[in-house]
């Protein structure tokens, strides 16, 4: 018995030989249509539902063909959308290939790729349903609202007005653009936040052009400040926002370490200047 035969697609208990016509979507509308799905698993789930089959009995071959014919419509203009879908397509093709090959006589330890895909689909379907239940909960700022009131007048609150540096604003903009990726490891108790150092160093270099590492330090931050500043500089170099240039002015110190005293010149690292590249 081959449950993967196209004939296994049933619509209202009737086996069908051809893919339902109503699945056709004009190419230009395709990308927009695809954006309605939360991803390839969601799309696959739709195809399974559309074909009215039990998930555990999912016929891989016809579903794969439908899936591939849709993905074929994805043009280069929507490449960013395509990545995840193409990955799924390759998974489906791999499963399809496996199913077409003769089964080995001896059972192997390898997991059945089809069973694995079905398991993933089930898990996804479960999360999707759970997310809908979550969305049905009474939610703050959609169904119920916090009461907002103003605090007493400034002068009643405090005699002296706090004064802020305009650099706070600028740093916030740098931080907005340059904040470390959330994938990066973060130090739990960071006395000197990395994002703050990155922002401050970017601001200083972008206004001054170039500065030495020492000049960029905030002396109040102590040793940990030096370490975090160094990491910040490395991060900015990785992003090609700043570069290192040799310092020109003090050629006098480097000129007298010629040939004769090679050992000491190895220790005498010329000072380096950091430069804003943007």
């Amino acid at each position, binding site marked *: 018995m081959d449950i993967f035969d196209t004939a296994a697609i049933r619509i209202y208990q009737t086996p069908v030989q051809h893919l339902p016509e109503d699945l056709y979507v004009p190419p230009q509308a395709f990308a927009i249509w695809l954006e309605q799905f939360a991803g390839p698993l969601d799309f696959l789930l739709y195809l399974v539902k559309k074909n009215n089959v039990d998930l555990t009995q999912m016929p891989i071959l016809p579903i794969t063909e439908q899936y591939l014919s849709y993905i074929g419509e994805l043009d280069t203009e929507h490449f960013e959308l395509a990545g995840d879908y193409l990955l799924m397509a390759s998974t489906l093709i791999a499963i399809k290939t496996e199913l077409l090959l003769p089964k080995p006589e001896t059972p192997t330890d390898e997991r059945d790729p089809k069973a694995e895909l079905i398991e993933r689909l089930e898990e996804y379907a479960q999360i999707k349903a759970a997310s809908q239940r979550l969305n049905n909960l009474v939610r703050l700022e959609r169904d119920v609202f916090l009461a907002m009131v103003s605090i007493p007048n400034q002068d009643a*609150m405090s005699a002296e007005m*706090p004064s802020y540096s305009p650099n706070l604003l600028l740093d*916030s903009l740098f931080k907005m653009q*340059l904040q470390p990726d959330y994938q990066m490891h973060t130090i739990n108790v960071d006395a000197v936040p990395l994002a703050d150092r990155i922002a401050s160093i970017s601001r200083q270099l972008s206004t001054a052009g170039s500065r030495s590492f020492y000049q960029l330090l905030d002396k109040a931050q102590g040793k940990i400040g030096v370490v975090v500043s160094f990491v910040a500089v490395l991060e900015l170099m990785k992003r090609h926002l700043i570069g290192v240039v040799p310092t020109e002015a003090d050629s006098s110190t480097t000129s007298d370490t010629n040939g004769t005293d090679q050992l000491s010149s190895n220790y005498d690292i010329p000072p380096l200047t950091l430069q804003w590249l943007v």
Partner: protein
Amino acid sequence: MVDVDDTRQDDNAQKPISATVPPLTDEQQQSLENISKHIEVLLHASETPLTANVLKQHLSLSSKELNQALTLLQARLDTGVLSLHETASGYRLQITDRYSPLIQRVFPQRQERLSQALLETLSVIAYKQPVTRSDIEQVRGVTLSSNLLRQLFDKGWIVEKGYKDTLGRPALLHTTAQFLDAFGLTHLDELPPMPDIKAIQALS
């Protein structure tokens, strides 16, 4: 522990408002009560102070009804800790001044620390003004919380002035003279030059 003077007159809602006003029927009184509650709700929910015109429009009120309802609201509030405050840009609900020592004592940080989200929002308004709410969301890539805007309005650092001529005519946001004061500037020209955000964005 109790350092606040609470010996105020309780102008209870049930009492007639004042002798000069002709007495209202129970039904009128009830309707006015409801209106005053609706006004209270809107003031609690609004990011910005609300003008008399906006209130009248949203609740379909006459000027007389509005004034009566506001009087009633103020009377009801007097038994609690809030007061109805009229500013140049409209009405808002505010914690009564006499509680400021309590707030200062419990939340000493409240005044000085500005969150990154608040600073970013303020920066976008300062550098790109006039901007709409959705302009800010576009630049920051996250939805703007009502509470955050409310804080900026409360500090008097931003105002709504004019509308953008697009769908929905969204209000345009500007910074104020108080904003300049707080940041030690005398003119917007004195803001530090804006970094080339586009270039940074392209690189990172």
